[in-house]
């Protein structure tokens, strides 16, 4: 098991563009959470998906949206990119039935907005 995988590894976009980041959860996991990590900061929760629906959402604007597919993989979409969206985007997966909150993180996608 490769664990949580994310693609692409790095991405460079310009202001106003749109971006899609992808995440495949660890085998057996059914829940995907997305975090944004700005330089020098801890990860900040964006939202979480379970059964193809958004369960929780952090303090991020509607420009940030997501999707979960029947195979539990997930996408994070960001519209109208701003310079401040430059960050490392982390995906984490977990299993709801486990009854406790251990999230496994992917390596992240480094997004640079010019």
């Amino acid at each position, binding site marked *: 098991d490769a664990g949580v995988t994310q693609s692409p590894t790095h991405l460079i976009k310009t202001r106003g563009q749109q971006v899609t980041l992808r995440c495949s959860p660890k085998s057996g996991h059914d829940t995907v959470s997305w975090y944004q990590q700005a330089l020098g900061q801890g990860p900040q929760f964006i939202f979480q998906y379970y059964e193809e629906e958004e369960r929780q959402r952090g303090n991020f604007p509607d420009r940030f949206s997501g999707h979960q597919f029947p195979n539990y993989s997930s996408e994070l979409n960001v519209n109208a990119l701003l310079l401040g969206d430059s960050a490392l985007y982390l995906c984490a997966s977990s299993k709801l039935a486990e009854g406790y*909150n251990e999230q496994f993180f992917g390596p992240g996608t480094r997004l640079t907005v010019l």
Partner: protein
Amino acid sequence: AQRVTQPEKLLSVFKGAPVELKCNYSYSGSPELFWYVQYSRQRLQLLLRHISRESIKGFTADLNKGETSFHLKKPFAQEEDSAMYYCALSGIGANSKLTFGKGITLSVRP
């Protein structure tokens, strides 16, 4: 609102010295507390959680509800402990969102 505070950005110690990484939290209720670690060029991974009460790689952390703290301790630091450490909390129950502190860099010198 839930908040995690790690007051220091960097801790540098010599090998064999004791280590204490501080973490304070704010949460209305009973949270789950975690320490995550990120070694150089590796992904973020769970080090320990307060519920399990385990000692991982010689590290321990005790939840002090009175002081709302969850400090990470190790009596004798090793060079391989050099990494970025993040304290995090979540609500009780499966898959609640994690709130992270800003992290602290631990540097263990030979």
